């Protein structure tokens, strides 16, 4: 295992969710998604019901990883902002605080300029939230506080595979 994993609590999710829902409204977006750089979906809001969000999260992380590799090739640290234009829907992807990916899906009810403007503001807010989440994770790991794993037994693990 490499380093400590990301641990997010109820109160953190509520804060992130509030920010994400506000961004949907302020940017006139169809959907907003917050994804961990490793491809885990953290939060979502908007009208994109039925979308395969697990795949969206994994592919977004792959996209950021691939262009991050390209960035290094040309001497940049990262390409933190991506825009994909479609016939109907567009995707605006931003890397926040080098760790979190903010995905906004929008159509012609909004505009790239508006999305950019709103994302910039929200990015600062999200960066702050995740900095605190990270700090909390590290402090708890250092203090040896209980996680769901500290109480599990080998039998619990074996039972998972007995079916």
């Amino acid at each position: 295992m490499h380093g400590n994993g990301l641990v997010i609590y109820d109160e953190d999710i509520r804060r992130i969710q509030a920010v994400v829902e506000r961004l949907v409204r302020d940017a006139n977006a169809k959907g907003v998604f917050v994804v961990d750089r490793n491809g885990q979906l953290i939060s979502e809001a908007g009208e994109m019901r039925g979308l395969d969000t697990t795949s969206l999260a994994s592919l977004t992380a792959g996209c950021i990883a691939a262009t991050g590799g390209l960035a290094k090739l040309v001497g940049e640290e990262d390409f933190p902002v991506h825009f994909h234009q479609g016939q109907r829907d567009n995707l605006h992807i931003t890397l926040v605080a080098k760790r979190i990916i903010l995905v906004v899906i929008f159509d012609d009810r909004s505009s790239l300029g508006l999305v950019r403007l709103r994302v910039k503001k929200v990015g600062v807010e999200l960066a702050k939230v995740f900095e605190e989440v990270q700090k909390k994770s590290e402090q708890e790991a250092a203090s040896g506080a209980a996680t769901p794993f500290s109480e599990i037994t080998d039998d619990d693990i074996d039972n998972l595979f007995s079916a």
Partner: protein
Amino acid sequence: MSFINYSSREINCKIVYYGPGLCGKTTNLQWIYSKTNPDLKGKMISLATETERTLFFDFLPLALGEIRGFKTRFHLYTVPGQVFYDASRKLILKGVDGVVFVADSQIERMEANVESLDNLKLNLADQGAKLEETPFVIQYNKRDLPNAAPLDEMKQLLNSSGLPDFEACATDGRGVFETLKAVARSVLRDLKQMSGS
């Protein structure tokens, strides 16, 4: 890197299938996908070339059940095995919780197996990790082929430290779920140890 979400009571882990080109990493995932209850799996994504060689990765999200009220989800990834896709392999290994090394049993692929295993160690080291400290299992795939190398020889070459290993034939599913269960178990035990219990 695992992700624990207390709000949705979920634990997410990332497992990567590594190995030389055409060793059967994608076939492992395809078998798992075809034999898993639809309620427990998401869509399988393959970013492949026109000739169905993995270009970037395959991805399969899988739910394994609950532990102490937390849903355990595993995200299975494969890397592209061909030597020249090394930059992509490095990216996919980031944040990995457990690795399956799929070895090709054909005798003429032994050098490719060793090269790929060395490449795995190098790429893990690149992100500050050591293979010995990563949950890791080995699968000797294609055991059904007439030109398969003797098992002892493969163990000696690829598994001198006696880690969990399995014989397999991914095309008919033999050994596929045994391998997956072993790596998932190893990842969960590792997380438990990291929790200091």
